[in-house]
């Protein structure tokens, strides 16, 4: 393009903005990330690798992956369906529903743990019935999953709603006029339009699911090698003065954030789409 691009800022402004953004990110994100890695490697690679190979660490990783594997798909289903209902239709109580979806963000993880104790704990609503039938929810795997679902509940929906809102329903309406059926519209028209937002939502949901600490800590029981998720295992190590090992495990979760980006770029390139800079 030889003509000045009218939708771009002049070079100095652009560089000013870029350096400001890098400054912000550096201070708020890069520095903590660097701190995690520096602490993790303080005692050298050997300690670093050994702490990841530890049996308790491996079982914590497994538990964390399992919990994410169950909770993320369920919340993805919910997110799509809620976003569809909210953005394609006008109905009474829509704002209320929207606010309710946000609610788990506002619920302190501490409270989230507490409510499940009130429900499933030995003295809770279902506690006596559960213990009679020897079903364990709290202080076992199911409790960890439920707490994770609660915490990550709004992520996908929250990502999709503004996106679908800004896209409007014109295309879907056109599809209906052309005779398309419900699921056809979703797969052929809506999904291609929202796939980036959906992907973001799923990735966020997943990251949060794996990193959740507060709520899971209340319902896990902290049994080493059994109900300790990775974040809880990190806390255990930290409390054992194994700082390097704790941070080594934390790098796993930090790498997860970088890894998800890798997936995102690959998917973007495969589909020949770029959601990023279009100059």
């Amino acid at each position, binding site marked *: 393009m030889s003509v000045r691009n*009218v*939708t771009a800022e*002049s070079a100095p402004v652009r560089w000013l*903005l*870029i350096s400001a*953004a*890098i400054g*912000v*990110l550096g201070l*708020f*994100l890069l520095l*903590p990330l660097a701190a995690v890695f520096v602490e993790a490697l303080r005692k050298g690679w050997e300690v670093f690798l050994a702490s990841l190979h530890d049996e308790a660490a491996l079982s914590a990783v497994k538990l964390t992956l399992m919990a994410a594997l169950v909770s993320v798909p369920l919340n993805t289903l919910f997110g799509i*369906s*809620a976003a*569809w209902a909210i953005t*394609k239709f*006008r*109905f*009474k109580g829509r*704002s*209320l*529903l929207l606010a*309710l979806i*946000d*609610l788990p*963000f*506002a*619920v*302190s993880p*501490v*409270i989230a743990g*507490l*409510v499940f104790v*009130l*429900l499933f704990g030995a003295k809770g609503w279902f506690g006596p019935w559960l213990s009679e039938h020897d079903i364990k929810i709290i202080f076992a795997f199911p409790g960890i999953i439920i707490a994770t*679902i609660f915490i990550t*509940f709004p992520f996908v929906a*929250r990502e999709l709603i*503004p*996106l679908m*809102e*800004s896209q409007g*329903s014109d295309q879907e*309406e056109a599809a*209906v006029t052309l005779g398309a059926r*419900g699921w056809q519209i979703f797969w052929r028209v809506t999904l291609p339009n929202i796939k980036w937002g959906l992907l*973001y939502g799923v990735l966020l949901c997943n990251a949060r699911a794996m*990193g959740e600490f507060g709520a899971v800590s209340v319902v896990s029981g902290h049994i080493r090698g059994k109900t300790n998720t990775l*974040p809880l295992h990190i*806390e255990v190590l930290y409390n054992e003065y194994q700082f390097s090992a*704790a941070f080594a495990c934390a790098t796993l979760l*930090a790498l997860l*954030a*970088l890894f998800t*980006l*890798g997936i995102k*770029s690959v998917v973007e390139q495969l589909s020949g789409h770029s959601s*990023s*800079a*279009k100059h």
Partner: protein
Amino acid sequence: MSKRRVIPGFGMSLGFSITWLSLIILIPLAALFIKAAGLGWEEWRELLGSPQVIAAAKLTFGASAAAATVSAVLGLLVTWVLVRYEFPGRRLLDAMIDLPFALPTAVAGITLCAIYAPNGWLGEILASLGIQAAYNWLGVFIALTFIGFPFVVRTLQPVMADMGKEIEEAAATLGAGRWTVFRRVVFPLLVPALITGFTLAFARAIGEYGSVIFISGNLPMKTEILPHLIIIQLEQYNYEAAAAIATGMLVVSFSLLFLINLLQRRIDWQNR
């Protein structure tokens, strides 16, 4: 309000959403409310009106609002740069945005503490300037900004990426300067997402526990946050009082969320 429903799937999507919402969110929270109702009215007033709770509420809501505001401003800048410009390292930076999500809150707390404590990387510099970052109000604010920041970026990003440049081009053709285009054309389109981002960051900050307790210092009346008071009540096996504080927090945050959603609706309608 009502518009003819040409698009199918209303019953199913709403039905499923409400069922799942009830199972995961509403029933558990009902348990909380019922537990809290176990306290008499007088006890409620005494508990929620106690100086310690009021001090903690001021800190929690004040620091959360400040952190969410800062997150919104910085988030807008960062998202703009990430979406609109191409520069080396952009992808890496983009990836890092999610870090505060993936990092367990306790690790975040410990890490921030390592950075901002008086003997930490930045804390040392700040301390020589006479600023105490960790173990006071500022520490809480820093932790909450760290936690809330990704919400703003990740809500703005898809909207900004999907925003065509046609309107901007049209505006430019009509002679509008770049800043005018941003202010009058681009920004209004971003406002709903920005408000959502702010709201999410704010709501998340109110409830945040794990990262804050490491850096706040937890001094009663000074740097104690509401979730910590809940823990303290639990330590005394006072489930009712814990539920009462939790309920109070929930009611306030829910009203805020609801109000902001209404506001957003209004802006949305005006834009159409």
